[in-house]
């Protein structure tokens, strides 16, 4: 017979096994957005604390170097976490009326990993930045008492 402790250990292992995206899943999520277009490094700045004590509420901001005019602006900003169960953490859609290409939000981070921000510009190009974070208390998949 399986003891309660063993069952819990197994349940946790299964949960962890199922509920974890992989860098491959993130690449797939990025490819879905870019349609296979090349993503260049630069223009984007992803700001997040390098050491996160509590993964449940992480301040994250993204800014993009763009004049935000009708002719030249950022259309969308996407942030990905390869180790989160759902790698696409946030998608924001901007335009010339934004005035400035900058967003701030709170996200959950499941584990220590390298977060990636991808910006889509009005000329069809994609730019990215990444930031490595260390998480002490992981979010997303914890057991609820």
């Amino acid at each position, binding site marked *: 017979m399986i003891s309660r402790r063993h*069952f*819990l250990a197994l*349940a*946790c292992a299964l*949960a962890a096994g*199922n*509920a974890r995206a992989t860098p491959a899943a993130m690449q797939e999520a990025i490819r879905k957005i870019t349609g296979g277009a090349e993503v260049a490094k630069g223009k984007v700045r992803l700001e997040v604390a390098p050491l996160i004590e509590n993964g449940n509420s992480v301040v994250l*901001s993204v800014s993009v170097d763009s004049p935000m005019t009708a002719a030249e602006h950022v259309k969308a900003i996407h942030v990905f976490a390869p180790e989160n*169960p*759902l790698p*696409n*953490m*946030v*998608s*924001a*859609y*901007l*335009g010339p*009326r*934004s*005035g*400035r290409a*900058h*967003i*701030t*939000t*709170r*996200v*959950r981070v499941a584990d220590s990993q390298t977060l990636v921000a991808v910006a889509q510009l009005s000329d069809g190009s994609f730019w990215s930045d990444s930031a490595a974070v260390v998480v002490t208390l992981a979010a*997303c*998949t*914890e*057991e*609820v*008492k």
Partner: protein
Amino acid sequence: MARTLVHVPARAAKGQIIEIKALVGHVMETGFRRTESGALIPRDIIRSFVCSYNGAEVFRADFHPLIEFPTIATESGKLEFRWTGDNGFSAEASAPITVE
């Protein structure tokens, strides 16, 4: 309806870029957590957020209950905020603005 909190400057100069904060109270259950007995807790999250300025959409975001974003103060009027999520969740808020 869920509790909402929006921060919009009451007054702005025409053409000025203003920062807006929008927050809605929501459990944001990931759908990956389990109870002590191993049962999966179903996902219940915000799917979409839209901000309209006098009826024109100026900002949109997916998946988040709290977001801070800029917009240009173009004219006096009303900013409207709308969140939608799983299980038919919907919340609205609005804020007036005077542009001079």
